């Protein structure tokens, strides 16, 4: 602390009424010979006025309703967020369970593995000539083991609405993968070609 800082501290203590008699005496001795500190023992530069205003204050604001309102809004927002998070967690959990418990994950994994292997047989449906602007729905259905463990396998879908692609006769009956085309004709349509291809993984073609 610089030497004059000490007297500034004493001056502040005197103004705040915290100085001891010895400190007051020390400051008075210094102030008598210091132009900057002279008169500071009696003139407190408005501090008394501030204290007086505090005592005369009549403003009585109230913020309790606003604060409690914010707290309640925050609580309901938190509840809402929590419920939404729980709902998402539950939905995610159900999805994961369905994915793994039903064996779909295993099937998907096998399909991915199989897709990397070269197909043993490829059944290519012939080009089907269809009118232009034909509404074409391609249905792809995985046959074989049921998606739901323990449930009977679904019967193969052999017929389709209008068109049925040719199958490779060497494929097992029913084939593991089956695809078909359903067409719907629109009036005034011109012809167009649609190709359909069936790909059967090697170990499923038997």
């Amino acid at each position: 602390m610089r030497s004059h800082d000490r007297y500034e501290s004493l001056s502040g203590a005197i103004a705040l009424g915290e100085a001891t008699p010895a400190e007051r005496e020390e400051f008075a001795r210094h102030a008598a010979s210091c132009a900057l500190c002279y008169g500071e023992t009696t003139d407190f530069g408005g501090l008394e006025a501030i204290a007086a205003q505090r005592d005369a204050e009549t403003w009585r604001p109230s913020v309790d309703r606003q604060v409690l309102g914010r707290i309640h809004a925050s609580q309901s927002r938190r509840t809402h967020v929590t419920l939404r998070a729980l709902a998402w967690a539950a939905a995610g959990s159900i999805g994961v369970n369905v994915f793994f418990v039903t064996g779909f994950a295993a099937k998907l994994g096998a399909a991915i593995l199989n897709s990397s292997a070269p197909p043993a047989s490829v059944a290519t449906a012939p080009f089907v000539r269809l009118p232009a602007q034909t509404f074409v729905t391609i249905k792809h259905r995985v046959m074989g083991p049921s998606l739901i463990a323990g449930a009977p396998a679904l019967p193969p879908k052999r017929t389709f609405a209008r068109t049925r692609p040719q199958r490779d006769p060497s494929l097992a009956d029913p084939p593991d993968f089956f695809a078909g085309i359903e067409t719907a004709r629109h009036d005034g349509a011109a012809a167009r070609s649609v190709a359909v291809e069936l790909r059967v993984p090697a170990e499923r073609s038997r």
Partner: protein
Amino acid sequence: METVYVLGLDRTLDAEARVERLVYEHQTKLARYVRRFVNDADLALDVVQDVFFAAYKMLRADPARPLSAGWLYKTATNHSITYLRKKKRRGEIVPLEDAGSAFRTDEQSAMSLDLQSALATLGEEQLACVLLTTYAGYSSAEAALILGTSADAVRQRVCRAMRAMRKVLGEPA
């Protein structure tokens, strides 16, 4: 001088009830203090709401945390200083009529305006020291704890603030 409410140790109350108690105990004094600080009654109410809401969030996160009135003043002071600094950066000038607005409800004398003008010349730290000690009624040691400094520093700032205010108040109108 300061009544310390160790609300966090009262485990029978939840965060909301504790804050409710804090609000009822301190809202008026805290709002008056902040109003002197920022020189704007509406802003003071906003700052006080923010302070109590911050207290609620803190108690919700840590229910066992003791919370004193000093914490409220510290947070309110920090909020007020932030506001004043932003205002300075934007270069806003408070017109003289508004300078006295903080006193409008209780006194509108020329002296109040002069005093508010004098307070407006102080830096934020000096203002905090003056208001915490002379207006909020804290000792220099308590104010030092609130402001995170030493009691000597608080006294020095009060002394320098006094000198600055004396200059303004001594000038002829």
